[in-house]
């Protein structure tokens, strides 16, 4: 049991973005979160990662109460996230994007006088991570020279490089051409399984979800509609009615 | 009298900050060039009035000339603003903050020297509007009518702009663009035109501030620096984009300045910067945030 969410509530004036949500995530489990627009998926990610503080409820991570902890503390504890709109360091190279993530999450940025390039083991680790994400051949490129799909992978690689135990991904394939979506998900899931991470993936595309995750959480209007294995949940008539029109 | 002094200065600051707020709200641009509009308005007005009134024939129409001068200052400044929006500013909307600051700062410097080229280093005075309107006597206190005029003008313009933004169809367009440019263009709104219009209005406001001020302070090089910084503080303290906040902030800052000049006339030079420093040091988020809760 890596993450436990109890009765989480987040309201924005009258809008109940997250309305009494409870669920748990196991170690090595990959959970997909689906739901129509405005169902509260991103809000939930924001609450777990620490971007937002809830109005009520509790979040427990590895036995610790993290409900009101700031994001950087949660990062130290092993929760990392990636973003729906790609969030990179645009003026440093691809490999530097990963290297800086490694440096800072290991507390090495205090060093002011030894050139970064001399930290060979860090560079090695960065290259390994880039290899997992299929970007190592473009390590010296600048982020704006990558394709959209590659940029998304880099965004996730930055989170991955902080050596998390739980990684939260907000629509990792949005904005990517449909033919590339599966390839990208292959890479992402590979990376996750390789390090035995737990993951939460918010997705719109139901085909993606059913093929890659261990279990699915269906959200609607801030409440959980269903939770379980993909093939079971997605055949549920109520779920189908709610999600009708999203995909297929 | 100190109060009125503070109020008229506050009015000038309010006009300037209105321009800053508008252009920041709609186009997300931090526009240091607003200071240039202030000095341009001042110079054009002062030059016009002093030149026209040096002709003996026109001396009889001093009041008319004065107000034409102010009007002219505003209009020409607005047109200059329009010109630079279409040639330079449109490239500045989407760049990073430091580059925006640098670019608009560059423009500020350019205009400063252009003013020096055109009008030389001398001070141009045009006190006529101030003098001609005379004073109002109430209870033995004398109030300069011109000061009152400034206050009334600024107040009316403030209300007019509020009306425009919140009660007209055009205002809706402004607000949509300020919320989200992409959505706005998706809705068929010409974001370009709205941005240009906003900048034009901003320039008019800046020019108005300068034109109104020049009978009191005269036009001189570098005159825009202090008002620019202070109006920036007004916009900041009131919360960027917040009209009521700017109103209150401009009054506070204007009165503070007026009181401090009266009590400590020697430190006037550093005064402005001290005010700025204190405000930013104590309330980095803005005054109104604390009040409104």
């Amino acid at each position, binding site marked *: 049991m890596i993450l436990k969410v109890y009765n989480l509530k987040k309201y924005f004036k009258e809008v109940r973005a997250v309305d009494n949500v409870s669920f748990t995530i196991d170690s090595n489990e990959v959970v997909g979160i689906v739901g129509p627009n405005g169902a509260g998926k991103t809000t939930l990610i924001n609450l777990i990662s620490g971007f937002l503080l809830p109005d009520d409820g509790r979040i427990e991570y590895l036995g610790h109460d993290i409900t009101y902890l700031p994001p950087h503390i949660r990062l130290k504890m092993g929760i990392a996230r990636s973003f729906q709109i790609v969030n990179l360091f645009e003026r440093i190279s691809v490999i530097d994007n990963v290297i800086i993530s490694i440096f800072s999450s290991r507390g090495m940025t205090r060093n*002011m006088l*030894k050139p970064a390039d001399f930290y060979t083991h860090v560079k090695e680790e960065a290259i390994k991570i880039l290899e997992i994400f299929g970007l190592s051949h473009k390590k010296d490129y600048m982020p704006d020279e990558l394709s959209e799909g590659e940029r998304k992978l880099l965004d996730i690689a930055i989170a991955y490089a902080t050596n998390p135990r739980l990684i939260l991904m907000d629509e990792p394939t949005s904005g990517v051409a449909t033919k590339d979506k599966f390839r990208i998900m292959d890479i992402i899931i590979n990376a996750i399984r390789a390090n035995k991470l737990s993951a939460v993936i918010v997705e719109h595309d139901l085909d993606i979800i059913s093929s890659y995750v261990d279990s699915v959480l269906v959200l609607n209007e801030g409440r959980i509609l269903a939770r379980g294995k993909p093939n079971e949940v997605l055949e549920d008539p109520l779920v189908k009615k709610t999600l009708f029109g999203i995909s297929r | 009298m100190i109060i009125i002094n503070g109020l008229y200065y506050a009015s000038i600051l309010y006009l300037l900050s209105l321009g800053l707020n508008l252009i920041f709200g709609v186009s997300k641009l931090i526009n240091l060039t607003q200071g240039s509009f202030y000095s341009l308005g001042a110079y054009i007005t002062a030059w016009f009035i002093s030149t026209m009134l040096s002709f003996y024939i026109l001396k009889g129409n001093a009041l008319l000339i004065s107000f034409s001068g102010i009007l002219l200052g505003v209009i020409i400044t607005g047109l200059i603003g329009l010109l630079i929006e279409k040639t330079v500013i449109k490239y500045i909307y989407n760049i990073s903050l430091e580059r925006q600051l640098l670019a608009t700062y560059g423009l500020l410097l350019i205009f400063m020297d252009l003013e020096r080229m055109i009008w030389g280093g001398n001070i141009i005075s045009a006190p006529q509007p101030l003098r001609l309107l005379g004073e109002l006597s109430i209870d033995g206190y004398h109030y300069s009518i011109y000061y009152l005029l400034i206050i009334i003008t600024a107040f009316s313009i403030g209300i007019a702009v509020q009306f425009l933004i919140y009660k007209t169809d055009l205002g809706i367009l402004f607000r949509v663009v300020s919320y989200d440019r992409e959505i706005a263009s998706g809705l068929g709104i010409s974001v370009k035109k709205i941005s240009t219009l906003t900048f034009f209005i901003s320039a008019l406001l800046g020019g108005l501030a300068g034109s109104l001020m020049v009978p009191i302070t005269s036009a001189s090089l570098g005159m825009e620096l202090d008002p620019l910084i202070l109006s920036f503080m007004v916009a900041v303290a009131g919360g960027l984009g917040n009209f009521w906040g700017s109103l209150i902030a401009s009054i506070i800052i204007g009165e503070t300045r007026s009181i401090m000049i009266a009590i400590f006339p020697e430190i006037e030079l550093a005064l402005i910067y001290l005010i700025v420093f204190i405000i930013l040091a104590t309330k980095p988020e803005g005054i109104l945030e604390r009040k409104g809760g």
Partner: protein
Amino acid sequence: MRLYINYIYELKKLTKILMTLIIFIFILLILPHILPSYYIIFISYALSFAIASLGFNLLLGYTGLLSFGHAVFFAIGAYSVALIARYLPNIYYFEIVILIALISSALFAALIGIIALRVSEAYFAILMLAVSMIIYSLILKFYTITRGSDGLPVPIPKFIGLTIHGISQDVFIVKYYYYILISIFIVSLIIMYLIVSSPFGKALQAIRDNPNRAYLIGINVKLYKYYSFVISGTYVGLAGSLWSIVNMYTSPEVAHWSFSSDIVYMTLLGGYTIFLGPVLGAIIYTLIKLYTVIFTQYWLLASGIIILIISLLFPEGLGGAFLRAYKFLAPLTIKRERKEIREKNRRLR
């Protein structure tokens, strides 16, 4: 094995840089024997400005923070020297005053930084302007101490362990001070290079590019901005103190916003996105300022245009232009391909 190869590769790169540096130093050292003394004085000015712009660019180019009032540190450095020369002539030794100037600027930066960095970036730029103008007014105000707008003379300092008798200031600069300047400049250059290439330097760049993400990968954004600010202020303060001795005189103008503007200008001129850009910019700035007296009449216009054009179109400045010419020799095909991808992506976005 790969680690070893990588290490060797990095060493090779560093050796190449070192070689270029040594050649550069060598050229600087022989110049006094080739050029007349006024050139040497010009280079001395350029070197002190270069230290200032180098420091300034740590804050602007690497951390992404623009300050319109960095001249204040320059003034603190310069006036530290001048005031000691005037009121404490017994300790007016070069080593001592430079140290005091360094400490004063560092302290001032440390104090101001606490307040200045609480605000967001646009306000920070203006706040620094306010700070420098307050100091400017204070210098003018306390006439009895600072001699106000008359300024203070800066005589030749004594040196610990070296005695120089009865020579003119010109000769002093060309024969002795020039070499001191070179050494201090080289040391500052190396230290700055180490700082920007270190993990800390990378963290600053991350802060520049995306402060939110930087925070989310564990960088203490506020603290690092503060460090960057203090280091940059110290550099500019050092530059001011060194400059005051070359200039033999200091006046309140060095705290004025127009001088801050000049610091921005010289940093931008050479290119604020390249490490050596500011150095190049400082050299060109010194050239323009000292040699084209006719054009300084419309100095604001000229610098304003340059600042506008560079910030909009050429953040790489003149330094970038040189780099392009140099890289022109590199294989053209790879560059063209990558350039095309970049253009394509830009259009798609």
